[in-house]
């Protein structure tokens, strides 16, 4: 058997896609390879049945850098991101791997599945919930939707859905009102488990979107976990979207993404010295501080897609008593007079006084 160490040091979403390539390598060539990986995200590989501990100093081991150069043709070739790593492996190894499933390959142990969710442990309640990611890394700020829009969606489902906000403290994740705020409090493995127990996921194009597809559904839930993705026009949908997701995009609608994703990096320059600030990497159509492709996507549209999932997949919603019991655990931010629903910050002086 050929011994391979596959190396990729990209973002966690990329590693999720790589899990699919490793699975498909073994599915297409059973018994031909022993594989190990070197990524920055070891927690995504826990319980993975396709890994064997290999040492790169072993003369029989071949170390392969695996990326997805196919992305450079994503606007021309009708192929999904999952093909990216597979094609690179095929090129380097002279193979003909093909995808066997339309998702990544994340494995949970029996213990992890049996353990009550982090939400259950925090609240003491078994309640349905959706994961929400309302921001992202600073490298591709063009993926961000405005935090007041995320807030408007959360507000729309007040009393019906519990949203659990996730995000790395080192990245841009503004706080939302009325959510269970776990920003900066989760490991990568925690997020895997949280997604496992989640009834749905709401996010931009980001890591949890890939997890939403890659992590199996919990028993009794729908076979595919609903995921509503606010995507805009950066990535071509055939490349990025999973068939079971609600992928809200604008490709084909605007001149800047008329024939495919723009693949640009930032809405405005951040001034951090990164080349992503260069004009060639900046959005060419910014309106109200958002890329027009993201501005076009209204909170109502996103809320409709979630409702679509709730009704279509017959997903559970909160009961009145669950809503009441959850109240102490939710982030409490201010609402001003005229009941401005998008109010986000905590300001008890107004919250208590202007509600009356």
């Amino acid at each position, binding site marked *: 058997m050929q011994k391979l160490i596959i190396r990729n040091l990209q973002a966690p979403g990329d590693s999720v896609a790589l899990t699919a390539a490793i699975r498909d390598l073994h599915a297409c060539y059973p018994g031909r390879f022993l594989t190990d990986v070197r990524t920055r995200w070891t927690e995504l590989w826990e319980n993975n049945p396709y890994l064997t501990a290999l040492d790169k100093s072993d003369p029989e081991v071949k170390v392969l850098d695996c990326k997805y150069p196919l992305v450079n043709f994503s606007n021309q070739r009708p192929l999904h991101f999952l093909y990216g790593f597979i094609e690179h492996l095929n090129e380097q190894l002279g193979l003909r791997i093909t995808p066997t499933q339309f998702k990544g390959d994340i494995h949970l142990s029996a213990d992890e599945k049996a353990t009550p969710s982090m939400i259950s442990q925090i609240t003491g309640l078994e309640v349905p919930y959706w994961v929400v990611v309302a921001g992202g890394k*600073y490298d591709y*700020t063009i993926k*961000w939707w*405005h*935090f*007041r829009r995320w807030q408007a969606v959360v507000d729309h489902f007040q009393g019906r859905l519990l949203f659990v906000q996730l995000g790395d403290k*080192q990245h*841009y994740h*503004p*706080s939302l009102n009325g959510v269970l705020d776990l920003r900066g409090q989760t490991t990568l493995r925690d997020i895997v488990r949280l997604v496992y127990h989640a009834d749905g996921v709401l996010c931009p194009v980001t890591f949890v979107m890939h997890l939403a597809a890659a992590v199996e559904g919990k028993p009794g839930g729908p076979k595919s976990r609903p995921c509503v993705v606010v995507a805009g026009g950066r990535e071509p949908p055939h490349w990025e979207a999973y068939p079971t997701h609600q992928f809200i995009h604008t490709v084909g609608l605007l001149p800047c993404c008329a024939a495919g994703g723009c693949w640009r990096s930032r*809405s*405005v*320059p*951040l*001034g*951090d*010295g*990164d080349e992503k600030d260069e004009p060639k990497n900046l959005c060419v159509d*910014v309106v109200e*501080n*958002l890329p027009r492709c993201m501005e076009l996507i209204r909170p109502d549209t996103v809320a409709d897609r979630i409702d679509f999932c709730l009704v279509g997949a017959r997903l559970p919603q909160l009961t009145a008593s669950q809503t009441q019991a959850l109240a102490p655990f939710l982030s409490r931010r*201010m609402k*001003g*007079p005229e009941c401005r629903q998008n*109010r*986000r*910050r*905590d*300001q*008890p*002086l*107004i919250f208590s*006084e*202007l509600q009356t």
Partner: protein
Amino acid sequence: MNQIQTPEVSPVFEDPRSRSDFRAKYYPTANGREAPPVNASGRNQRVILEFLAAYYQLNCLYATLLQVRKKPKSRGQTRTEAEHLHAIEKVLISRDRLEDRYAPYGVIAEPVIEKGFTGDVTFSFGNVDARGVPRSEFLKVTAYVPIPLPPSTQFPDLPLKIEGLGFSTKKFT
């Protein structure tokens, strides 16, 4: 420290510390530390000052509101209270505009509130990390690679862009 290039800070911004009626106890700290000086010129520092001014105003208005509330209930008191609430709301709207203006630059300004007063504001910026180091520094790798140039060749003649420390337009022979 790299600073945000755009947008410009509000041209009408006035640091409350410059005013004669300034009440220091209502002026919040920034990230647990004293605010930048009035004449700070760095973009991020100016952004901090704008937010602190907004929260200072809120604190002052809230303090006044509490005083109004201590007075006996009357029709006049109710009207005064409503006026103060309205004034607070106007400042909140200004604060929202600040948040909106700087959101695409990755600026987050989260107030730390106790008993209705903002004592501190936690800031994070898109261009620098918590230590003030440009975020792109994490991604920079430097290597020394000597490449001999053909005789009489100058850097500008090369069909590639070279920048960074050590770059020179000096003629190499």
